[in-house]
């Protein structure tokens, strides 16, 4: 596919969302991915736009006034502990840090800036790797997420532009916050592929969660088994998303690109390699051109092996947006030189993974079979009488 007009949201304002040194969620990932792209020569200054700070009115498109006030108080360490806990703040997952309201507002503003670039026509695609905080609830922080920039961005698209949105969430954790936000809305179709909630947080995302009221049939979940490998993941993802897009025919696609389904990721039990992170954006890109005149906004998300996995996985989203193809071969030596010194683990030297990094999974066949059964369950709702052939 020929190169597209794309914009990359970045400034150091995105890096202040930081709980503490030992916390698994580290926004340095955004810097590592940005630097990798610059060294690879696919990201130039002209492509970059800064995030703006989302206004409180914008944040309240999804979150409750009382919750936003609580986050602002917590930002200054002025929120009583008991009240904080009620709002999901001050927990091990989402600890309070100084300036958390401002830092979170920039992540939200980054996603809104990405939406504006695309919907004003200045760009066809836009990427905000600082966003994708899909666990945030209306009045509760959860799973490292304070403000749910994805849900806010979708509300913003609905109110300002009245477009039908397809939200695609490939994080290994279920995209629950965004799902529940639009569970009764037929104009927002959500699709989340994730490790089954049997063991993994948040525990939801069963295939039978289909939406309610008017929104019934517009929520899609594909829970895949622990230890799922590339082939099974890609088969499920490709088939499901192709059919869902054909069923829903969106005006714009918003993707959440958690990079925690990789076999190196410490928090999940999926077993993919970099192969899926090449295919995920390629399909989103293709479908955006097929159904939405290219309109595609991509966000970051989870990803807890910040050295070996996330920079490469996220950089490939931009490579696909910008030049239509992922990069391959050796990683830029300058990037490796610069960051190997800091990294506690040996950095990979190529864009692709050596397939041998995946351990042998004895129940591979059964796992693939189970995933394809889940896929069949999901597909039942992608067939309507009008497109049944």
């Amino acid at each position: 596919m020929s190169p597209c007009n794309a914009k990359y949201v970045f400034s150091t304002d995105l890096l202040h969302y930081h709980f503490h040194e030992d916390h698994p969620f580290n926004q340095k990932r955004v810097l590592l991915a940005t630097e990798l792209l610059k060294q690879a020569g696919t990201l130039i200054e002209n492509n970059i736009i800064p995030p703006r700070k989302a206004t409180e009115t914008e944040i309240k498109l999804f979150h409750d006034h009382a919750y936003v006030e609580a986050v602002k108080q917590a930002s200054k360490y002025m929120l009583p502990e008991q009240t904080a806990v009620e709002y999901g703040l001050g927990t091990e997952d989402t600890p309070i840090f100084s300036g958390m309201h401002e830092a979170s507002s920039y992540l939200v503003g980054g996603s809104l800036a990405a939406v504006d670039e695309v919907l004003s026509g200045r760009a066809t695609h836009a990427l905000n790797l600082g966003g994708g905080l899909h666990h945030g609830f209306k009045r509760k922080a959860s799973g490292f997420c304070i403000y749910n920039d994805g849900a806010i961005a979708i509300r913003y698209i609905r109110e300002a532009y009245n477009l039908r949105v397809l939200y695609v969430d490939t994080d290994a954790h279920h995209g629950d916050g965004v799902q529940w936000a639009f569970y009764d809305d037929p104009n927002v179709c959500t699709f989340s592929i994730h490790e089954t909630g049997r063991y993994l947080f948040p525990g939801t995302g069963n295939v039978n969660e289909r939406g309610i009221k008017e929104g019934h049939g517009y929520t899609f979940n594909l829970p895949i088994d622990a230890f799922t490998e590339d082939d099974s993941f890609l088969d499920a993802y490709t088939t499901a998303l192709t059919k869902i897009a054909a069923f829903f025919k969106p005006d714009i696609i918003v993707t959440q690109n958690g990079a925690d389904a990789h076999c190196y990721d410490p928090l999940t039990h999926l077993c993919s390699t970099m192969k899926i992170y090449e295919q995920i954006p390629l399909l989103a890109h293709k479908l955006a051109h097929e159904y939405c005149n290219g309109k595609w906004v991509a966000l970051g998300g989870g990803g807890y092996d910040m050295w070996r996995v996330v920079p490469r996985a996220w950089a490939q989203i931009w490579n696909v947006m910008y030049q239509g193809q992922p990069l391959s071969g050796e990683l830029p030596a300058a990037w490796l030189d610069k960051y190997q010194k800091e990294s506690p683990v040996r950095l990979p030297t190529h864009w692709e993974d050596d397939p041998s990094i995946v351990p042998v999974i004895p129940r591979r066949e059964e796992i693939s079979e189970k995933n394809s059964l889940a896929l069949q369950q999901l597909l039942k709702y992608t067939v309507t009488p009008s497109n049944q052939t």
Partner: protein
Amino acid sequence: MLVEEIMKTEVITLPPTATIQQALDLLNQHKIRHIPIIDKENHVIGIVSDRDVRDASPSIFESDEGSNNLQHEIQSIMSHPVITIHPLDFVEEIAKIFYDKEIACLPVVREGNRLVGIVTEKDMLYTMIQLTGTHVQGSHIEIKVPHRPGILPEVTAIFGKRKTNIVSVLVYPSKDDPEYKILVFRIQTMNPLPVIEDLREAGYELLAPNHTAGPLK
């Protein structure tokens, strides 16, 4: 947990003299599957299920013109005597009644069979969901521990030390080893790794999928 905590108190009932047609209409209108039959003093004297009513209805393949099957009194098809329970019964006890008797609905009565509520199989399942904690966000951890006194507080102390909120705890016997129990915890965190590490250090055996975390990660 007591029956009175999960029972529904607004019960749709019929007198024994009502017609089968009335029962059919009520079942359809309220999307329910059982109707207790009560006398003038509100005492339970029978029960009809949707299946009883269906059995008494003409087949859709037969012309029912002239048939007055549905005009019979409901008492002609109701089941009796009725197995009933009390508001102070334990939920786990009545689960056994559902299972043993292969029924799906239990009227709740007090003082001489007076109807005060109803519990269905569906209410039981909902309660089970609450007990397992799967309705709230959390991570799931299974640990194999020796079956001996004091083991539960030892394990939960580790969660306490990490300030990890426990949503639910289940204890069940290890299938292949009667000397061991399996403890199942749902904990309110997206990052169970610190707790898992502590549990390992304390010498506990973790079960799938985290048992592979060592070599795999």
